[in-house]
């Protein structure tokens, strides 16, 4: 039987079936065995219970996205499973595993032509006191994927640290399932894992990665109001901040959280808040204040489907407009976007560095896919950024908080420093910080604030630029994973094309972009929203030689590599 480099497995079932637990264990087991992987959770609208599915992709090399098709869907039951038909694409080469006790698979599933194999999950679990069907399914899926049974056991031991009868029952149930796998018919296993030390890998979600990156960047104060899908970021940060001597405050709303972070940052403590689109909208006024008063702050927007409450648990990249254009007045600020789960570490660390160094607000656009996916990744290189907030020294008689400087950055006096006290003000001001409605002061301060961002050296982090050729794909955020995979497929077919995945959305980097696209005649802009927001942003901010074409579609379904590959394949034709 053939082997494969990656395998996509879905496990579905109703509330109480424990499909998420099993999915997480599958990912852990793969990590134990030296594989990489990604897990995405999906569920019905019920607050608790209802139908749910764990979507797991295991691979020999790091993966940032889901695949076009699932190789196997195992269902503990068929309740309402049709809702996942679009989210768990299956084909004739797919395998559907179901419990005969639950009846036949629903017609919606049968229509895809997948092969069906039955596995009496419930009956097998019953044979073991304390055994659960989800553990049988876990064993079966691990067996199909070709994970060593020991790795699955180790994952169980790692998770059920109390051990005892519960662990023993889970291991036995898992083993039963594992033994059944070969009986489910032909199924390509994973190729052996690449080398590399397991100790050099991490298993984390993008929300956790963002929180970690923020703390490594120096954030010691967070105020926030809970909102899906940013909540996990906050929940990870609360205890983590306490450990490193920082603090997290749950604010009464987003108006409070952004203003609290501004207060803390004014006090000299690097500060962050995290939210999603509705919360970002509420923060917009205070972001204007951060620009005017030059107070560093990082706002993470873990984007979800909008507008309004939209589809709160699903992914979309539709907040680019508000993040780049949503401030009142002429308000130059930073907008960044991580492009993979692990990249959240670097991008947040960089965002904190930039906000602090440039004394400007930085909006970081993550999204639900990145935020809530859990991935096995290579431990990221420890990139420290030199610089930080320029502080005023005590008793400087000539001190002016908003002094016009060549770089546009002027030292910030931190409360407690004698002799340089000033008032941070959202009113337009002169160099001293005194309110002024004089035209020259307004112009000078506008110029100063714009210059800070124009003169800053963003180095190589502004984008991931890969490949060569006359064709290119420009993308950002969680679309980067599927674009990369699509480009790899196209390259394997002989197409020469580049990738530009923007990490720095604003300020625009026209010179760097011109270099990255030098010689490119045609570029595809890939993004996940209905309005082609990135395409329009590029048209407004850049003068590009290449003809731009657009691939955009909204959420809630994540973009898959095949969708982009199809477009690229057409480009390949003469």
């Amino acid at each position, binding site marked *: 039987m053939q082997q494969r480099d990656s395998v996509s497995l879905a496990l579905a079932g109703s509330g109480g079936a424990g499909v998420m637990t099993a999915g997480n264990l599958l990912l852990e087991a793969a990590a134990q065995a030296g594989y990489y992987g990604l897990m995405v959770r999906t569920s019905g609208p019920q607050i608790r219970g209802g139908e749910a599915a764990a979507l797991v992709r295991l691979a020999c090399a790091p993966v940032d996205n889901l695949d076009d098709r699932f190789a196997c869907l195992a269902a503990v039951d068929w309740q309402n499973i049709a809702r996942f038909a679009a989210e768990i694409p299956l084909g004739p080469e797919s395998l559907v595993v179901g419990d005969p006790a639950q009846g036949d698979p629903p017609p919606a599933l049968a229509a895809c032509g997948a092969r069906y194999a039955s596995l009496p999950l419930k009956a097998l679990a019953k044979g073991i006191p304390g055994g659960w069907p989800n553990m049988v399914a876990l064993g079966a899926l691990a067996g199909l994927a070709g994970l060593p049974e020991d790795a699955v056991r180790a994952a169980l031991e790692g998770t059920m640290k109390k051990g005892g009868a519960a662990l023993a029952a889970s291991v036995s149930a898992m083993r039963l399932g594992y033994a059944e796998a070969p009986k489910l018919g032909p199924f390509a296993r994973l190729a052996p894992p690449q080398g590399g030390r397991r100790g050099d890998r991490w*298993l984390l979600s993008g929300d956790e990665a963002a929180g970690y990156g923020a703390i490594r960047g120096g954030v010691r104060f967070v105020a926030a109001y809970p909102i899906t899908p940013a909540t996990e970021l906050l929940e990870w940060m609360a205890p983590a901040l*306490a450990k490193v001597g920082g603090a997290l405050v749950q604010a009464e*709303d987003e108006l409070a959280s*952004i203003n609290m972070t*501004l207060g803390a940052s004014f006090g000299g*403590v690097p500060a962050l808040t995290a939210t999603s689109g509705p919360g970002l909208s509420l923060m917009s006024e205070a972001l204007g204040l951060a620009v005017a008063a030059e107070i560093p702050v990082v706002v993470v927007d873990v984007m979800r489907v909008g507008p309004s409450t939209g589809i709160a648990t699903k992914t979309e990249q539709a907040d680019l407009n508000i993040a780049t254009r949503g401030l009142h007045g002429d308000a130059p600020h930073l907008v960044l976007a991580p492009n993979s789960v692990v990249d959240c570490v670097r991008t947040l660390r960089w965002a904190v560095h930039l906000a602090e160094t440039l004394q400007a607000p930085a909006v970081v656009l993550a999204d639900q896919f990145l935020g809530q996916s859990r991935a096995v990744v290579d431990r990221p290189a420890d990139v420290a950024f030199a610089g930080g907030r320029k502080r005023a020294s005590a008793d400087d008689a000539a001190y002016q908080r908003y002094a016009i400087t060549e770089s546009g950055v002027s030292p910030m006096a931190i*409360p407690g420093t004698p002799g340089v006290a000033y008032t941070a003000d959202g009113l337009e001001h002169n160099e001293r910080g005194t309110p002024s409605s004089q035209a020259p002061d307004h112009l000078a301060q506008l110029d100063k604030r714009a210059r800070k961002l124009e003169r800053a050296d963003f180095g190589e982090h502004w984008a991931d630029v890969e490949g060569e050729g006359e064709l290119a794909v420009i993308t950002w955020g969680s679309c980067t994973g599927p674009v990369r995979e699509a480009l790899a497929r196209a390259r394997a077919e002989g197409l020469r094309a580049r990738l530009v995945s923007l990490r720095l959305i604003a300020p625009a980097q026209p010179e760097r972009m011109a270099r990255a696209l030098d010689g490119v005649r045609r570029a595809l802009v890939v993004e996940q929203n209905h309005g082609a927001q990135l395409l329009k942003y590029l048209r407004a901010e850049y003068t590009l030689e290449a003809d731009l074409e657009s691939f955009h579609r909204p959420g809630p379904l994540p973009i898959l590599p095949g969708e982009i590959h199809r477009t690229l394949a057409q480009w390949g034709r003469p």
Partner: protein
Amino acid sequence: MSTASAAAITPQSFKSGVKPVWCPGCGDYSVLSSITKALAALGLAPENAAIVSGIGCSSRIPAYTSCYGFHGVHGRALPAATGLKIARPDLTVIVAGGDGDGYSIGGNHFLHACRRNVDLTYVVMDNHVYGMTKGQPSPTTEPDWDSKLAPGGTGLREFHPLVIALASGANFIARAFSGDPNGTADLIAQAVRHPGFSFIEVLSPCVTYRPEQRGWKDAVRPASVAVTDDPARAARRLMTDDGFNLGVLYAGRRAPYRAAPQHEPQSPASLELDFAL
């Protein structure tokens, strides 16, 4: 709270060179002078105090002092001050603003600042009107007060900030009158010394849009009762109060807000153990 090293800390030390834009006669001038007197009486160095405000005539105060100032956006002074105080517990943080700023657009923050009980002092210059935007009714405006935006009055009953503060958990509640700057200074100093969230409602006339408030000087009187730490007694007192009793009306004993217990900080890099396989 650190004490000024220089011997000669006077109220004058807390004034900046910036000239107030307020109307002559406005109560806010006196409140500014009360704040500077209180800070001097507390023996603070200007750099160790921060004055945080929102938007409004009254919210212009920070730049008129020599302390660190934060003149933020309308209604959000309390959150900004909360963030500052939690991040920098060593600073003395005074929040100042108007009734519109604090009770209308910032009303939700008022409730939560009271219940959060962070060690802040909140001075509201209540003139029962939006001064800055030219005389619209505020939450404390009388229902029949005629204005362009609400001809014949709003018909809405007034918001009772002291009762709300008490019910929401403020730890110190006082009323002052701008026409008595020394008394106000004294109350502000007491409020700063009192742990937790201290709220001072200062009757501060708007001579431009509410000229009749010049008459407040004849209406106010010192509260005739002793300070209580009993919320039930304070509630009875405040509910029957006509709005002109001055002094400390409640001084509670709630422990102030504390951020998560601080251990010996761990290295940030060690947090990666959460993810390491």
